[in-house]
């Protein structure tokens, strides 16, 4: 058990009940009408979904940064999230999004295609440079196709639906989304934990890692499966929620011994906490329409990224 894990578990245990009460209407069981229904059918699944998605993104970010030995890596950059989004956009385009299961299914198929492409192009050698370039190209292609779908949307309603969905949110999610995302994310985090020892070895560079018995192809396969399942299922139920995978490992790293293997589980918990708190905050902000979670996290994440770059520049100077 790593040091930050108990602290994060306590923080989640404190934040979860607060998040269940927080919202446009603060739940008061004595006075709020239908409080039990609001809690059981709206707040609880939404909060659990926030925990699930945050956990997946945090763990994927930690593993990705460990694999690429780069603190600026984000799981969204490497093709799988944009491919999942493309899948979801396709379901809107063809008008299937009204069916509750088809939208996440399309997104998962998109994520699966992204994983397969990445494995096909980069998998044979297990090389990191090829993996990065392949991921960036897949992300670029998926982004272009998504833009194409938006520009050629069959009607204005579909276009608006796509654009809104891409912003990422947990509004009006139900137990169905929890049942889709939770098992896939759990399996994904399991895959990411399997990469731990390999990622530790990679701390010393590719050649040293291989000399220590690390098998690059196997580490990469677990990584692709793990990122695909966590990020893919997250996008499938919530749209694009960026920056969690980038920020969280940074916040957690100083509290670990900085080995990548020791960062995955705490990052999952910290990601869960961050998305839970962020989603609760967007619910209680006094705005006319609810701020989209994806936008809120980008508003926090982008300045954080810039601060990180400035700090790295100072370190290099």
């Amino acid at each position: 058990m790593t040091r930050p894990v108990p602290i994060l578990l306590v923080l989640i245990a404190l934040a979860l009940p607060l998040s269940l009460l927080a919202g446009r209407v603060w739940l008061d069981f004595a006075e709020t009408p239908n409080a039990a229904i609001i809690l059981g059918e709206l707040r609880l699944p939404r909060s659990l979904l926030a925990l699930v998605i945050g956990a997946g993104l945090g763990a994927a970010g930690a593993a990705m940064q460990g694999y690429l030995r780069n603190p600026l890596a984000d799981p969204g950059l490497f093709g799988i999230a944009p491919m999942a989004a493309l899948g979801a956009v396709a379901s809107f385009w063809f008008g299937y999004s009204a069916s509750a299961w088809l939208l996440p299914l399309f997104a998962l198929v998109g994520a699966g295609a992204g994983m397969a492409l990445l494995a096909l192009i980069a998998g044979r050698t297990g090389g990191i440079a090829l993996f990065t370039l392949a991921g960036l190209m897949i992300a670029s292609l998926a982004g272009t196709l998504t833009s194409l779908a938006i520009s050629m949307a069959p009607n204005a309603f579909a276009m608006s639906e796509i654009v809104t969905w891409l912003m990422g949110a947990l509004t009006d999610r139900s137990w169905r989304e929890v049942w889709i995302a939770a098992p896939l994310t759990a399996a994904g985090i399991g895959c990411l934990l399997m990469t731990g020892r390999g990622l530790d070895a990679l701390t010393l560079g590719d050649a040293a890692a291989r000399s220590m018995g690390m098998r690059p192809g196997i580490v990469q396969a677990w990584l692709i499966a793990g990122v695909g399942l966590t990020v893919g299922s997250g996008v499938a139920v919530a749209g694009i929620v960026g920056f969690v995978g980038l920020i969280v490992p940074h916040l957690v790293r100083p509290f670990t011994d900085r080995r990548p293997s020791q960062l995955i589980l705490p990052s999952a918990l910290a990601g869960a906490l961050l998305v839970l708190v962020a989603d609760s905050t967007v619910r209680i902000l006094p705005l006319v329409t609810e701020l989209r979670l994806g936008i809120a996290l980008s508003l926090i994440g982008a300045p954080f990224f810039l601060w990180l770059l400035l700090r790295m520049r100072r370190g290099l100077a």
Partner: protein
Amino acid sequence: MIALAATQLTIGTRLRGVDAAFAPGRITAICGPNGAGKSTLLAALAGLLPPDSGQVLLSGEDVTTMHPRSRARAIGYLPQDGEVAWDVAVRSLVALGRMPHGDTAAEPVERTIATLDLETLAGRPISKLSGGEKARALLARVLAGEPQWLLADEPFAALDIGHQLTLLRHLRRIADEGVGVVMVLHDLGLAMNHADEVIVLDKGRLAASGSPAEALSAPIIEQVWGVTATWIGEPSGRALVTR
């Protein structure tokens, strides 16, 4: 006896039919001009580069087809770049060396830390070490895996003369314990004075091998490096004077 040998090793144009044999308990230096294939030979000996033809045998077994973990237990490889991507503490870094054994046994880790005089630095992050301390910590990582072979690519690059001699003392002690030490060296003086055997490569081919005095004789230095030079001084402390 566990022996490491390359036979007719060919890798692209970097190595062309190199034969070399290494003995446990000895320090072998691989020397040669830039681009001679020294690092390629070392990586191939470590099983990291599959040869186009020829093979590297460890106790009769081809290193490229050995199970990666059993190969890692037998051969410790210290690359030249000294990369440590994350700012881990020295003890965590050294403990990574246990990976081939699938354990984090404290005893070999602490013993290696003591052997390389790293006790006072064990809790310190890598970024807070001097170049010489970092080189020792990286060597300790390899030795914590208790390999029978230590293959080091220019372990003295970027080290001052004091740290070079400290590291050399450690390598000699390891060799005396029976570990075969093979290292790429640019400094011919270090090779002459501290290696038991020397292999000289030139343009991917074996140019000379044998005792330092034989393999680094003035005619061979002139032939391989194109430099006219003379060794001066006592047999155990010779210096190369170029003209």
